[in-house]
């Protein structure tokens, strides 16, 4: 790297952060776009249809299996009339889509999406309270939905908003509880001594606290069975289901449930505003998947040599990021697939599962983990 660029970056730390933010954005936006396409294609195949397979490169006859679809969809939502019904509360109505989309993107700030590229750690903000930050931000997402329901000033969005808030509160708790055992394991610093490439990890983890998400990744780098999905299967199941509920995905899409509530909280929205909700939902899915990958499936590591230590070269660094994206894609596929596997839960069932099953189960899991840790200490 030329001298002056290095100097510039050293003197202005925010520049590097800005570059990372842009980089993450440049990866997440296409992922959002293509998870929509994937959703449509997979849904179609499950329903014996074909799905969008026409749009390819614009102005040519090349179809590319419909991979040009996001472009057409985006253009369409820009060109559509952005209709504001007369009965809405305008300020909130305008705010809601942004409020629902921004938190989903902010979550990516603390997620370690790769090891290192050069000297840079591949995480935008290496917070020592990473997981707490994540929970704080994820629960903000509900405000967009509630606000949309309130601002729309009509009954279906309102019902959607109410359902959403109840659902989010119920599952937020189970989700938080599910993550506690993860940190009970990862926050015990003794595991760092057993890692294969201890010195590299120590350099990588230098100065990070134990609630840091990178340290959870490091904890899981030691072989396949140190992935927390195997060590904490109950926690994983609860977390997975809670993510489904948090992202309003079927079988928990009660805020939107189109068979009962027309389109729930986004009934009154059209054009780009609706697209913002839509993008927010998919970004939340990706953020949720990323969280699951980091917390339970080893983050960017793989139990193979070279993939279980921070990267030594640029190439490896890029590969680590690709591994991370690949793992996210698996979870996205799962989320899309589950949509067609299960019918929507009834509202009372939803509450039952949240409060009467998952909450006690996650508490029991915490106690169990504590007992095991105490017995083996």
């Amino acid at each position: 790297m030329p001298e002056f660029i290095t100097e510039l970056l050293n003197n202005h730390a925010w520049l590097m952060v800005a570059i990372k933010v842009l980089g993450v954005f440049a990866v997440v936006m296409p992922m959002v776009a293509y998870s929509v396409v994937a959703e449509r294609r997979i849904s179609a195949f499950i329903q014996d249809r074909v799905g969008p397979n026409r749009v390819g490169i614009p102005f040519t006859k090349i179809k590319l299996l419909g991979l040009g679809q996001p472009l057409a969809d985006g253009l369409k939502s820009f060109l559509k009339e952005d209709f504001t019904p007369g009965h809405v509360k305008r300020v909130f109505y305008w705010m809601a889509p942004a409020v629902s989309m921004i938190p989903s993107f902010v979550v990516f700030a603390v997620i370690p999406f790769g090891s290192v590229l050069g000297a840079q750690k591949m995480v935008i903000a290496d917070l020592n309270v990473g997981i707490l930050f994540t929970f704080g931000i994820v629960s903000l997402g509900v405000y967009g939905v509630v606000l949309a329901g309130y601002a729309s000033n009509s009954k279906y969005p309102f019902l959607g908003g109410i359902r959403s808030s109840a659902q989010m509160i119920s599952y937020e708790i189970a989700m938080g509880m599910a993550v506690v055992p993860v940190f009970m394991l990862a926050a015990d610093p003794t595991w760092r001594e057993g890692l294969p490439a201890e010195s590299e990890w120590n350099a990588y983890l230098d100065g990070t606290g134990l609630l840091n998400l990178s340290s959870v990744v490091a904890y899981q780098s030691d072989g396949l069975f140190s992935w927390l999905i195997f060590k904490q299967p109950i926690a994983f199941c609860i977390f997975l289901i809670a993510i489904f509920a948090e992202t309003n995905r079927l079988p928990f899409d009660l805020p939107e449930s189109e068979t009962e509530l027309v389109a729930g909280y986004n009934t009154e929205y059209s054009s780009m505003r609706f697209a913002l909700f839509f993008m927010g939902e998919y970004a939340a899915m990706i953020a949720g998947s990323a969280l699951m990958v980091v917390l339970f499936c080893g983050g960017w590591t793989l139990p193979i040599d070279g993939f279980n230590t921070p990267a030594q070269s640029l190439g490896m660094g890029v590969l680590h990021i690709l591994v991370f994206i690949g793992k996210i894609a698996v979870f996205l596929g799962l989320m899309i697939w589950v949509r067609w596997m299960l019918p929507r839960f009834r509202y009372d069932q939803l509450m039952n599962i949240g409060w009467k099953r998952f909450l006690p189960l996650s508490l029991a899991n915490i106690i169990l983990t504590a007992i095991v840790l105490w017995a083996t200490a």
Partner: protein
Amino acid sequence: MKVERAKLSWLERLYIPSILNGFKVTMRHFFSWKRSGVYADKQSDYSAKTTMQYPEEKWPVPTGYRGAPYLVKDVDDNTKCVSCQLCEFVCPPKAIRITPPGQGGEVDREGAEKMPKEFEINMLRCIYCGFCQEVCPEEAIFLLKDYAITGENREELIYDKEKLLSLGGADERAYDHHVQDGVDEGIKKWEKKTQDAQNQPTFH
């Protein structure tokens, strides 16, 4: 009203059997490339899933279908229409507009006194009733099988004489259309009517 809820067993309340079932069903459909039986005889070129790939694939139009009305030519490529304007008169939505040739207009075939100077059908008005075909003494206009009439503006959808003639094509096509309907080839409409009348059982 009180809805009776079935009591779920312990296993059912875990939802795991239903999850597995759902997985099985979705898997089966995802990897099934079979055409649905409903379309089995309708589609031939494409073999995957049930979606009909319109416009590459099209429904075979059934016999007797009333598509867009076009003018046909006779086997010698001459205009059959003699500008009698019966169709214009009978057309319920007034979709047809004929400009007669006036005195001394030319004709391109023997046995015809005149042919239309201009013949327009507004496809946006046409209701595909088939009256024009019914009334035409010369069998010059037929409702063929086109059903996807598209255009970028209204003017484009007013078909003029040239367009109608070229779309209608030579006479055989119209005959084919009729042969399918059970009329012998080459029989003039009125001859057929006469025949039908003669074939009627008589009561005396």
